């Protein structure tokens, strides 16, 4: 075993929501209109009062497009398209704004959820500009592992898989009430019973080597780490192992 093996090991974060290809993110229909730049401030200020984008805080109100000759064209999101699709159902204050500025409206799509990655954000902006705030997590590892941390993750995982294949048992060292701050290394993605037991036990991070397509509760069948109602949330990682490690 040399350090050459490290290159084949890999840790992948399993996020709270199932990943969607960046170009297939859910969208919402909105009513928009080109506006005269000299009225932009007044219109946006008014819109923020009468039709704030409550659940679309990541969506930028104004889109700026550069036209030929260096001129900029501004468009603004007026409101979400009413449920029945009938624009007469727009808020009266928005309709009043449309007539007083003689706006010519069009409908367009914006992304429904804030981007979770730079790739998602770039795809979103092709539809309509959004803002992107890289996630700041307080569980270490979600935003990446140092080389030292990776090495220790790999060695613990190697040990876990060895235990799974050798039939050896290793009894508990001591009996703390909860596993606050502890990590667990599993050969297999746990089922929903065990995944929930780990919630009760307040484990900090779960590392597993092999997904369980028929019963796994951390990405395969369920995604327990994304259940917001639970009183504790751990971070989940899959550790990819080189083939030769598995044959030993």
């Amino acid at each position: 075993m040399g350090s050459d093996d490290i290159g084949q090991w890999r840790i992948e974060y399993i996020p709270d929501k199932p990943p969607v290809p960046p170009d297939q993110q859910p969208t919402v229909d909105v009513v928009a209109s080109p506006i005269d730049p000299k009225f932009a401030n007044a219109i946006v200020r008014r819109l923020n009062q009468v039709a704030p984008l409550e659940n679309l805080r990541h969506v930028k109100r104004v889109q700026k497009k550069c036209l030929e000759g260096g001129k900029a064209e501004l468009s603004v999101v007026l409101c979400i398209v009413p449920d029945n699709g009938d624009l007469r159902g727009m808020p009266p204050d928005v309709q009043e704004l449309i007539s007083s500025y003689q706006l010519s409206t069009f409908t367009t799509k914006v992304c429904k959820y804030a981007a979770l990655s730079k790739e998602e954000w770039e795809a979103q902006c092709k539809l309509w500009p959004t803002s992107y705030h890289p996630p700041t997590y307080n569980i270490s590892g979600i935003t990446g592992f140092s080389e030292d941390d990776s090495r220790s993750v790999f060695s613990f995982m190697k040990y876990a898989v060895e235990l799974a294949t050798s039939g050896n048992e290793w009894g508990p060292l001591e009996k703390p009430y909860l596993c606050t701050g502890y990590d667990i290394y599993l050969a297999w993605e746990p089922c929903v019973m065990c995944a929930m037991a780990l919630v009760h036990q307040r484990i900090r991070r779960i590392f597993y080597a092999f997904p369980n397509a028929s019963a796994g509760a951390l990405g395969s069948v369920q995604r327990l780490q994304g259940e917001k109602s639970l009183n504790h949330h751990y971070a989940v990682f899959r550790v990819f192992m080189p083939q030769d490690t598995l044959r030993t």
Partner: protein
Amino acid sequence: MASSGEQQERCPAAAADSLSFMELAVQQAKLALESLEVPVGCVIVEDGKVIASGRNRTNETRNATRHAEMEAIDVILDHWHRSGLSATEVAEIFSRCILYVTCEPCIMCASALSILGIKEVYYGCANDKFGGCGSILSLHIARGFKCYGGIMASEAVSLFRDFYEQGNPNAPKPHRPRAAQASS
């Protein structure tokens, strides 16, 4: 096959029976409360007879997974194991068993019950943080056991209220300030 009348097909446990078994589960929950445990209790019933009971022991065992259901399941599994029953026999008996529990089983316990293949579950109050029988996940549907809620729910809720008023001295980190001890 149940020998009771056909009109009971839709709700296999007669109402009076459910209440008396749930009463026993509430007794278990009260024992938990007296031991300063989160007050949840349960009984497992086979062919109209109580074969196991359990109550929350998370503090006593210093193990957050020792819920009432797990306690009762382990009591009866241990008994069957010592009686020399085979895995097939155990599965057959479980498929005739009914659980009465004061609070909707959590995701962990609901999953355990479905793996064991229990027939039915009757619970008191819903569990809107962890419930695995409809509140958060619906594990009873996927793995097939019948589930009925709302039996003596107010008794179950009032035990919780008593518990949180006295405060949980063993909780790792209270999320809100504890009420003054009701010991005077």
